[in-house]
């Protein structure tokens, strides 16, 4: 069993607890144990904090990293926004001495020091990596195959982009998530402009909600065209934007899509036999019932 410090972030534990619960249970069946990272905070939000003062952004993320360093465990997380903060700051501080010294000067005041002794992973990349889990093992763990459903993938931005700083290869047309969806027995569906942003990031959701929803709406139009039963993603902030966003789009633009939006961990949990109650799917803004009826 591989052990990781589980960095929760904000939206998964505080808005979609089913995604958190499913992450523990589903990954344990696949040989990954997620441990509590006591005292972790917001990553901090890369759009908000990065825009205000990058030095604060580095120091706040470093504090979370040091907590995991003290546990001597690599971090695993389930949110692209958290990945941007935690992975990127870890990477930058490891390779930029000036930056690291600056951050440590601040952390000294709370008896902490960034040493650069751990790595940071998105749970999705751990699940996909054949050296750790791999698609075959995911397939073997499925008890309730999602046969007959058409599922589209939203990759989000901050896991794979900017491409040159990351290690995921192409960001124009990736297909590794589709492989993971197919492993659950569902049919992965391609749609127009798949890599378009959900519209929430960079503080835009808070700054200009209608602008941000208009981007989401464009994605939803493209998804409707592809006739999908559900959308899956690996970022609770994108999940919030698509799920609660559909209600806001209904209010502001008068269009409704009723497209269920599930985090990949929720989908995986469902396929491994967790019930909708165990996934708290009733907390979703958009009912997952039509999708569940096809599956269960």
């Amino acid at each position, binding site marked *: 069993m591989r052990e990781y410090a589980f960095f*929760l972030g904000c939206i998964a534990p505080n808005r979609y607890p089913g995604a958190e619960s499913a992450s523990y249970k589903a990954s344990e069946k696949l040989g990954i144990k997620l441990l509590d990272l006591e005292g972790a905070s917001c990553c901090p939000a890369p*759009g908000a904090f990065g825009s*205000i003062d*990058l030095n604060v952004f580095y120091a706040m993320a470093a504090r979370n990293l040091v907590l995991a360093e003290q546990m001597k465990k690599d971090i695993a997380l389930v949110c692209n926004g958290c990945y941007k903060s935690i992975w990127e700051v870890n990477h930058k501080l490891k390779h930029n001495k000036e930056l690291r010294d600056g951050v440590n000067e601040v952390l000294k005041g709370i008896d902490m020091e960034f040493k650069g002794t751990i790595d940071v992973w998105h749970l999705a990349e751990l699940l996909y990596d054949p050296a750790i889990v791999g698609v075959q093992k995911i397939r073997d763990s499925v008890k309730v195959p999602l046969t007959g459903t058409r599922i589209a993938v939203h990759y989000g931005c901050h896991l794979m982009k900017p491409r040159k700083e990351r290690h995921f290869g192409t960001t124009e047309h990736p297909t590794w998530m589709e492989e993971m969806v197919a492993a659950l027995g569902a049919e992965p569906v391609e749609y127009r402009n798949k890599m378009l942003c959900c519209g929430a990031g960079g503080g835009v959701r808070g700054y200009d909600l209608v602008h941000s929803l208009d981007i989401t709406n464009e994605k939803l139009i493209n998804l409707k065209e592809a006739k999908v039963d559900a959308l899956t993603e690996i970022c609770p902030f994108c999940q919030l934007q698509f799920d609660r966003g559909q209600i806001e789009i209904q209010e502001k633009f008068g269009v409704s899509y009723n497209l269920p939006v599930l985090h990949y961990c929720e989908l995986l949990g469902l396929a491994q036999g967790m019930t909708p109650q165990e996934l708290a799917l009733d907390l979703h803004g958009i009912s997952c019932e039509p999708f569940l009826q096809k599956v269960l």
Partner: protein
Amino acid sequence: MARTKGYPEALEKKLADTRLYEDERHPEFTKTVEKISMTIPHMCYQCGTCTASCPSAPRSSYRIRKFVRRALLGLEDEALTDPDLWLCTTCYSCTDRCPRDIAPTDVIMAMRNLAFKRDIIPVNFLKTVQAIYTSGHGVPNNDVNRAARKKLGLPADPPTTHRFPQYIKGIQYILDYFELKKNADRIVKEREG
């Protein structure tokens, strides 16, 4: 007159008049943006791939290419006071496609940092700061969610600063070190009374 190509006289005059720009140029702005962003806007040849890739461009007057040009020319005031500065979703599509290996997204982030130094910032950014100062979370827990967590067999509060509030002190120390909370409170109060 420097150029005599037979343009209409008014245009000739305008082309010759560079003072219009020089007054507004701050060469140190270019350098500061490059330092904070750790990227190279001076390499931009204005192809426009960034704007073409931008999800915000089709639905607003936000043009990332224009901001990169402003960085290069040192047009500090024009860049920092433009409300479009805050429409970047930081999706990094422009960065992935830039043929000159510039990270326009990071140019925007650097400009936002510099704008904040002049108190130019939308309040929603500051409210996130205030929320984190109080609870450690930008999106804090609530009672509906606590009940749902318990039903799932999870503890009502996650093992973050929510269940271990003694860690909030460290977060407050960092935010106070940069005087961020103080400035956030001041600006929010000025705007909202």
